[in-house]
């Protein structure tokens, strides 16, 4: 697939003199060991948050949407903000596995597994909101075009909310298949190392009888490439469709053509920030620093910086065109964002998303783990505010001043959001103890080209300067 020659200026992606066996052992260790006390403490907190959120959801559904802070003007607020936020986060996973695969970025191999897990778990959180924000969620199945006894009453395919149904469900299923396919060789590895009959049985089932024959590998590679090729337009289209929820409307501040690519850029931005947050912790607690190296963190920071700049350009574009359009509603929408009652949210969005990633231009900062961690969290907060600003500040003051109002979230709004964060971490914590968190089969394919020991050896033998390879 790739050449046997690698330029000496490329830095190693696997450090610590690893052999194939070392890779196996290092990746299997968190799965084969026992959870420590910290894990149980964190898991309990996440689980408690999840239960609290679940309670809030049940309360909402059984009592009514009126328990939320929505009003007649602002029919969407935290629900859709959180939905878009979670979907956005879910995009980095597919991006890392699919887009970076298409661009032959070898460094993706250490992070793609966890990024995909993050995708699956955050899309699951996102998927909750379209259901629970319905007034009659028990009729949710009516959004599906199924033949029925109402004279085949059909759905209207003109609504972006219906496109959302198809987009999100397709996205979740394709991501799941993509993820699971990649897991087969790694589950097989765990199966072959299992010592108890129970784990043997579990991983035998999960690995679908993978035996790693040449033909299997050949097809595996082909499937990965095809899925990557399909998943890339899928990532773009899913978040595009999410952006259509707003952009197809006639609301000033919502109706703007840049939203599709700008939402996608924002999704990559926030998704990478979340991967960064999670992996900085994971490499430490699972002792995977030799695989998720500082270079990986730096590269992720660079992507955060680039997408942050693209998002920043889009913000400026929106501002400029609002002025340029000469439409007073549009102009007011942006004036209101900057100076209205939600100015603080707008300020958070601008400073967290546009200004904060720009510090990554300094090598000192982007190669500092502490700084990367802090900025990745800031970006996630900023991106939550971005969605909040777009949704609420455009709704609360639009065409008719008599309909102007404010939005005040209730504890139920907040509880459900906290609950999804809890649920996400419940799933992610369980994942990190039972799944191979690094795609060891993939890492083994780059070990000899990108392992530090092999690189040193090549340098000694002066292989790099020969033309014969």
């Amino acid at each position, binding site marked *: 697939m790739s050449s046997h020659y690698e330029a*000496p200026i490329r830095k190693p992606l696997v450090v610590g003199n690893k052999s194939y066996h070392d890779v196996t052992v290092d990746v299997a260790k968190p799965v084969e060991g026992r959870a420590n006390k910290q894990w149980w403490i964190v898991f309990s907190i996440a689980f408690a948050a999840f239960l609290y959120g679940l309670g809030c959801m049940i309360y909402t559904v059984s009592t009514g949407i009126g328990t939320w802070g929505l009003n007649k003007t602002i029919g969407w607020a935290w629900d859709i903000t959180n939905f878009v936020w979670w979907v956005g986060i879910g995009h980095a996973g597919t991006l890392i596995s699919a887009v970076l695969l298409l661009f032959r970025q070898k460094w993706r191999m250490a992070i793609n597994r966890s990024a995909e897990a993050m995708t699956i778990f955050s899309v699951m959180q996102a998927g909750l909101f379209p259901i629970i924000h319905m007034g009659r969620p028990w009729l949710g199945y009516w959004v599906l075009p199924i033949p029925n006894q109402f004279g085949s009453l059909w759905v209207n395919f003109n609504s972006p909310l219906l496109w959302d149904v198809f987009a999100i469900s397709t996205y979740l299923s394709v991501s799941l298949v993509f993820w699971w396919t990649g897991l087969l060789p790694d589950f097989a590895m765990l199966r072959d190392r299992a010592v108890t009959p129970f784990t043997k049985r579990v991983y035998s089932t999960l690995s679908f009888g993978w035996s790693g024959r040449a033909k299997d590998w050949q097809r595996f590679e082909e499937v990965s490439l095809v899925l990557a090729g399909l998943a890339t337009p899928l990532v773009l289209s899913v978040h595009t469709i999410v952006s259509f929820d707003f952009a*197809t*409307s006639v609301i000033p501040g919502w109706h703007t053509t840049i939203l599709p690519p700008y939402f996608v850029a924002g999704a990559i931005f926030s998704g990478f920030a979340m991967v960064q947050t999670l992996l900085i912790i994971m490499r430490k607690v699972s002792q995977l620093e030799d695989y998720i190296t500082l270079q990986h963190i730096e590269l992720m920071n660079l992507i955060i910086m680039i997408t942050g700049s693209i998002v920043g350009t889009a913000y400026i574009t929106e501002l400029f*065109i609002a002025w340029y359009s*000469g439409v007073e509603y549009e102009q007011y929408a942006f004036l209101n964002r900057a100076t209205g009652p939600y100015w603080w949210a707008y300020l958070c969005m601008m400073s967290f998303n546009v200004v904060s990633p720009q510090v990554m231009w300094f090598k000192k900062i982007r190669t500092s783990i502490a700084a990367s961690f802090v900025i990745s969290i800031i970006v996630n907060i900023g991106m939550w505010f971005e969605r909040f600003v777009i949704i609420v500040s455009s709704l609360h003051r639009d065409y008719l001043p008599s309909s102007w109002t404010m939005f005040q979230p209730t504890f139920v709004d907040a509880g459900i959001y906290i609950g999804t964060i809890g649920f996400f971490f419940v799933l992610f914590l369980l994942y990190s103890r039972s799944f191979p968190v690094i795609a060891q089969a993939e890492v083994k394919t780059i070990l000899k080209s990108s392992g530090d020991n092999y690189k040193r050896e090549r340098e000694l033998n002066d292989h790099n300067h020969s033309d014969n390879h």
Partner: protein
Amino acid sequence: MYTFSSKLKTFSLILMVIGAIGIGVGFWSAPKTVEEVETILLEESHGHHDQVASHDAHAAHDAHADAAHQEHVNHVFHQLQNKPWAAFYVACIFFMLLSVGVLAFYAIQQVALAGWSPILFRVMEGITAYLLPGSVIFLLVLVLSGVHMNHLFTWMDPEVVANDHLIQGKSGYLNVAFFLIRAVLFLGVWNLYRFFSRKNSIAQDNADGVTFYKKNFKMAASFLVFFIVSESLMSWDWIMSLDPHWYSTLFAWYVFASFFVSGITAIAMVTIYLKSKGYLEQVNTSHIHDLAKFMFGISIFWTYLWFSQFMLIWYSDIPEEVTYFVTRIEHYKLPFFGMLVMNFVFPLLILVNTDFKRLSWIVVMAGIVILAGHYVDFYNMVMPATVGDQWFIGLPEISAILFFLGLFIFVVFTALTKAPLVAKGNPLMEESKHFHY
């Protein structure tokens, strides 16, 4: 070293001469007075005339009808006068931005530490050599528009502005002086980046260390930052402001996708040509495959942006925006939908196949369609605003394409003779030579 074949040189000169003559004829045959337009309109089909007549009948009194008729004639007069200018403008901006697209691709390849493309850097540098003459001519057209030699930009006409409060509101941005300052700034910085990156690239050939390579890396990163901003502004200035009432936030990125894919296509076609002449021996089908993948991918990306912009405006149907597409669909049906076939359907079907992406003739064929399609794309962006329903791809349009194509070939292949085709000092060059996919 590459030597410019005399055949190709003659060919490019012939293109330029034919093109220049055609452009001259185009300007010469454009109507010079309103009376000429009157006769043209009279000669036109009766169906059109009947409409005018019935319109006149409905008018309250003759004076009003006369005024309306006079206005119509004036309007057509402006459009017909614009025609040779607009034809020149489309071809001029298309080739100029194509070289900017190559420049952006070149910078991206450098900052991304791409291991496959350094073998093509000299080809890219050759193509971007067109940027300087291209942008000089383009700037000249902008200046001539600024001194009212034509009516391409209606907002430059003080009479129009005086009666148009929407344009008045934009005059803080849309005024000739500021417009030209911006144009000089953007073209100047792009040319400076092109000049210095080329200089460093040649200096790196015989250098011991990698200082020039590192300089180029940093410069490419800074250029890309400047580029993302200047690209947005330039597309608002040079294209969107032709329709000064219309606006779209996506527009700049859409324009970018259009000339970016054209630039990549040009790289592929020049590479294939040089390879076929026995140069670039280390370029293999994998390199062509990668270029073709980019042509395929960015074509789809262009379509994505086209669709996003079109669908959102169509869906909300807000009157001040939707006129843009209404006029295009009414008067430009074939070019408007035809370009979708050329820029999307054709490359999608032909370049999805891995084996096809390695066949030179397929890539060249797809490339010709993509380049023609994106010319039509620019045509669709410029013409409805400048000549309206008086469009026709005739002598002025084809001559302008031939002239700029000849100039492009002449400049690019002359530049290719100026330096070895392999930038040997690049630390990633070995990877690129051994690249195999």
